[in-house]
């Protein structure tokens, strides 16, 4: 069955890029329809359960590519539902990066200074708050103490978690049962709905076609709510404007699949993908050394043995976020939690004499799981990811009924990328193997390639049409009326967690998108306050709009 509807704006995806656009457009008076391919769950449906079919596997996607695997959200609220809510601003030097293209990657109009007011809008809306040492979980404290012992600094990372409501269960990847994590389900999305936006879960957009009046027809399939491998009805929605925010792993795929009808895509669609320079090391702590060398102990008498306790990454070391260092040698190190199920298989046994990721020695390492500490590197990669031909539907061939599939991304890390990874591996060793505190090994890249939870740049903004798919207003080059506002628009790796930057860029794009909608005959105005009605940040950006 195929039916055709029409509206002013179709928003594809309901993560940061989609939710922010839906809110501002709906609040401004436009008719907005949000199509989200994943389910729509609320706090009471978020389970603490690893079972296949629980909320953990319903809201989460793991797409294995050739040399790079992507973890991301697959639900209403997108990445914000499954992320760890660590929300630092990108350091100043990031906006001056040249990457491999021999010129500044970012549009001339965007610097840290020009983006700061838009960061402010997001931090007011969620909100994001500065964190105190007093409420840093054990794993973050341990990493901080080890950094200090190695003569380094460490910071509690700004966070969108309301720590007074948080129970430190470390189930954030399955959605927050306690609404302590300020996901988009608590701010932009309900505010968008209150202004009349309609959100349709389990609607997977496959492609776009062009209408005679300059608008677009959005073609979707309805996804089975239990087995995502099964697609049901198809449908079409005509819109004057389309916001594409399906995520860096899906946005370019939808555009590639649309190319036969829409015409040639910009060269950068599906190219320049960045995994945010991500890399993981696992340390196995010697509990006695933690007590003796770092002087740490818990009320129950143990020194650490608390890998499971906490709320993801809470402490980062920014010593290498130094703009005077050469590009590809700058990175942050962040303490991270990675739940069992997907992560432990990739952790390697330090100094293994046999297989490093399975077998006898790995089982012995698993016995010490509570003494693990995962250190997450975010460095400067070389935008070397390229998407191959799109799969028949969606952005991956789904293997399991939920969560697991293989996609068309190909990634071969360059020597530049490896430089950052190797330097960060050495830094982690320096911090954590000092005085016998721990044994450390990086995760293997041999099984599912490199690994990112922060896919970026596969449809990026820029000033150079040859190396950017979008102009600095996020409009797709050569296809007026299509805007991209998700992580794929970010030009390259950020050396820190990117959600706040993705959201700030979406906020920044909104006045221009509203103008474009008006030019297409949509009765809409820009100027909504924060979703809770706060106005300080709106007032601050007013002069720039």
């Amino acid at each position, binding site marked *: 069955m195929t039916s055709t509807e029409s509206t002013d704006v179709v928003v594809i995806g309901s993560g940061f890029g989609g939710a922010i656009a839906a809110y501002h457009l709906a609040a401004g008076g436009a008719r907005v329809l949000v199509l989200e391919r994943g389910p729509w769950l609320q706090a009471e449906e978020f389970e603490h359960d690893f079972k296949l079919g629980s909320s953990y596997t319903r809201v989460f996607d793991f797409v294995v590519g050739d040399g790079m695997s992507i973890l991301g959200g697959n639900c209403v609220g997108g990445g914000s539902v499954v992320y760890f809510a660590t929300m630092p601003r990108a350091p100043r030097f990031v906006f001056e990066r040249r990457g491999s293209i021999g010129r500044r990657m970012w549009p001339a109009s965007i610097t840290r200074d020009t983006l700061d007011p838009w960061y402010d809008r997001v931090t007011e809306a969620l909100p994001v708050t*500065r964190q105190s040492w007093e409420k840093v979980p054990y794993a973050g404290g341990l990493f901080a103490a080890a950094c200090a012992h190695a003569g380094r600094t460490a910071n509690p990372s700004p966070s969108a978690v309301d720590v007074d409501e948080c129970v430190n269960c470390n189930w954030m990847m399955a959605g927050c049962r306690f609404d302590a994590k300020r996901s988009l389900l608590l701010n932009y999305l309900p505010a968008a709905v209150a202004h009349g936006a309609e959100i349709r879960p389990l609607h997977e957009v496959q492609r776009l076609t062009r209408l005679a009046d300059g608008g677009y027809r959005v073609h979707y399939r309805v996804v089975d709510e239990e087995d995502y491998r099964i697609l049901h009805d198809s449908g079409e929605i005509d819109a004057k404007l389309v916001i594409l925010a399906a995520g860096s792993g899906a946005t370019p795929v939808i555009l590639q699949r649309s190319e036969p009808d829409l015409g040639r895509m910009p060269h950068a669609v599906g190219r320049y993908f960045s995994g945010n320079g991500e890399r993981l090391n696992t340390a196995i702590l010697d509990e006695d050394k933690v007590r003796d060398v770092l002087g740490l102990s818990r009320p129950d008498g143990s020194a650490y043995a608390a890998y499971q306790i906490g709320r993801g990454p809470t402490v980062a070391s920014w010593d290498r976020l130094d703009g005077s260092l050469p590009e590809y040698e700058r990175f942050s190190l962040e303490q991270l939690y990675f739940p*069992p199920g997907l992560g432990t298989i990739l952790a390697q046994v330090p100094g293994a004499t046999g297989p490093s990721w399975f077998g006898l020695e790995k089982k012995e390492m698993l016995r010490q799981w509570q003494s693990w500490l995962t250190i997450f590197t975010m460095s400067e990669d070389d935008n070397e990811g390229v998407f191959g031909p799109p799969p028949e539907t969606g952005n991956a061939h789904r293997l399991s009924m939920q969560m697991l599939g293989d996609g068309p991304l190909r990634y071969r890390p360059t020597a530049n990328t490896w430089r950052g990874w190797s330097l960060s591996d050495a830094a982690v060793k320096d911090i954590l193997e000092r005085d016998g505190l721990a044994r450390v090994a990086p995760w293997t890249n041999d099984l599912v390639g490199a690994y990112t939870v922060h896919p970026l740049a596969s449809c990026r903004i820029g000033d150079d049409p040859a190396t950017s798919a979008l102009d600095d207003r996020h409009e797709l080059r050569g296809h007026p009326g299509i805007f991209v506002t998700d992580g794929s628009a970010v030009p390259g790796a950020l050396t820190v967690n990117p959600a706040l930057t993705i959201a700030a860029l979406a906020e920044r794009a909104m006045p221009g998108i509203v103008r474009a909608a008006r030019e297409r005959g949509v009765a809409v105005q820009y100027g909504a306050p924060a979703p809770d009605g706060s106005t300080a940040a709106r007032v601050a950006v007013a002069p720039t709009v």
Partner: protein
Amino acid sequence: MQPDNHDVDPARTATIEAYADTVVPGAKRSPDDRAVAGAALGGGAVAAGAVELLEQPGGGLAEALDSMVYTLNDHAAGYATAHGLALDDGVPAFVALPFEHRTALVLELTAPEHPEKQMWVALALFSNMAFDSAAHLTTADAFANRHPGLLTIGYFPPDADGLFRFPQYSYGRALAPLHPQTTVTGDPA
């Protein structure tokens, strides 16, 4: 989703068990256990439920298992020939391989250059997942049944309502100097 109620072929099950046991080794279930090599103490992937997880249609590998079992035993026979090993033909070839040779073959099959790597990595991933997260059981049931994987990794159990909460979670004090360039909002400059 529950597994299909088909007639289970013991040779097929033994082959899958032997692979899972190579990934996360465990103690033999009985003295005459051939599939589990008994290379490690305590339950391994097999006792943790790897076969149950792999046989679930929702996992995505169930339909491919017949062909994977056939191919794995074919590789095992080839491996034995190449290494001059005489195999007991009363059990599938992979089951007949001694543990260290099963390990060597799994290393070969999952190496980056192996053309079937993706399939064997997936089999290893699911075997490991059965052990470290009991993905075929509700986590509360896994604890009630004393799941060997969750117990081995020391995963703390949930509260009585099935939810995890950790009232004690912090050392509660500053443990490192802040980066000197930290902004008033707590961000990198």
